[in-house]
């Protein structure tokens, strides 16, 4: 009886570990998506600020709010030092390709006239939208996989116990 209890307790621990691992992987994937969505929201705000009001970047940044970018510390750096330094000074979950798009935008923002600047924002936004779409599709598959792993683990354990 004692042995059975120990085996059951061990099985529950393994199941919990597998579920927890799966949960973390899903959460990290979602955080990557949230970050991409936040960056896209910022780019939209910048583009609109430039296109509709020709507002200086400092004013656009001061008026902008986003909890994801605030939590990562990017928003504070953005307001203090501008986008180029804020991009370099933040720890991102973005992929190297996505970060390259953001760096390219940051290096050219504020250095041209309205049409060119809005086109720049639109170009960066389109590339990151494509990346976001792909990531959402991939993430759905990953989430299903990580939800299945604990179930498979549970079935395997039951078979072992039997």
């Amino acid at each position, binding site marked *: 009886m004692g042995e059975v209890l120990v085996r059951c307790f061990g099985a529950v621990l393994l199941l919990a570990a597998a579920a927890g691992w799966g949960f973390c992987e899903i959460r990290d994937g979602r955080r990557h998506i949230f970050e991409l969505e936040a960056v896209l929201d910022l780019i939209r705000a910048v583009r609109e600020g430039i296109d509709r009001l020709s507002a200086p970047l*400092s004013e656009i940044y001061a008026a902008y709010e986003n909890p994801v970018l605030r939590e990562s510390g990017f928003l504070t750096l953005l307001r203090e030092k501008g986008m180029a330094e804020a991009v370099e000074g933040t720890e991102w979950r973005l992929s190297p390709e996505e970060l390259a798009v953001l760096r390219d935008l940051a290096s050219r923002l*504020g*250095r041209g006239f309205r049409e060119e600047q809005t086109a720049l924002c639109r170009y960066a936004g389109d590339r990151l939208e494509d990346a976001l779409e792909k990531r959402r599709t991939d993430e759905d598959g990953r989430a299903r996989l990580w939800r299945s792993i604990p179930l498979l683990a549970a079935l395997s354990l039951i078979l072992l116990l039997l």
Partner: protein
Amino acid sequence: MAEKDNAWERAMDCLPERIRRAVLQTGRDGRGVEEIRLRAGGLCTLTVSGRNISCGVTASADEIAAAAEKLCGGSLYAHADGIREGVITGAGGIRAGIAGTASAEGGGVRSVRAMTSLCLRLPHRIPGAADPVLPFVMRGESALVWSPPGMGKTTVLREAAAVLAGPDEMRRVAVVDTRLELGAGLDGPLTADFYTGWPRAAGMEAAVRTMSPQILICDELYGAGDCTAMERVRSAGVAALCSIHAVSAEEAVRHPLIRAGLFTVLCGVLSPRHASSVELPEWPVVREAVCGARRVEVRRHG
């Protein structure tokens, strides 16, 4: 002097490190410096009391672009309208003339592709600069300040705004500050309404329509649109204090604004080396004064 120091410090902040060091090595700490000029491949100079002082370095096109970007606060597009007219007005009223390669379209400038010259003009306050002309404006007459470029017309208008809207006079003053220069350094409880960045004609018409000013102040009038707007200002019974470019009193009296009878007082801001007052029977000199390094000559129609 505090205003000048701040403008000097802001100008130093805009300059690339190498150029800044060279400017400081001339021994100037801002006193008497009217302009800082950068030229791509050309000699960088300071203008001090009208004289050109070499800084001993030449600037590169990249350095000029970096200085212009800092002057624009990292947002060149926000200054596009001014750049098309060859000027950037930075924080604190530092006005920079620019020259370079233009992208032209339909006879106008669409943008400036590569800046090759930057001339930073430092704003300054000269208390008392407007004293010769103020009594006329306070009586309800309209005065036109004239001079060649760089003589101090904007300074006179700025000082006039400070007095007319100050706690002693408390007139309702509308200031159309198209180039963000008139308001530079004006602080304190003023009874002035600023139309910052507004095109002149639009600012004048909006002010008269909605703010019922007693006095309207506007810099550098030119063109038919400005004249039409000024007619509306005057027909509303608002006294105006404005400025135009002119190299002589004879040229000033031929200006369309004068010919249209919109101004009864002419205020010339001249260098001491300027030829002594010419006789214009319809515009006799009624007042002369020396303000700092300038001679101010007031003529009144009659």
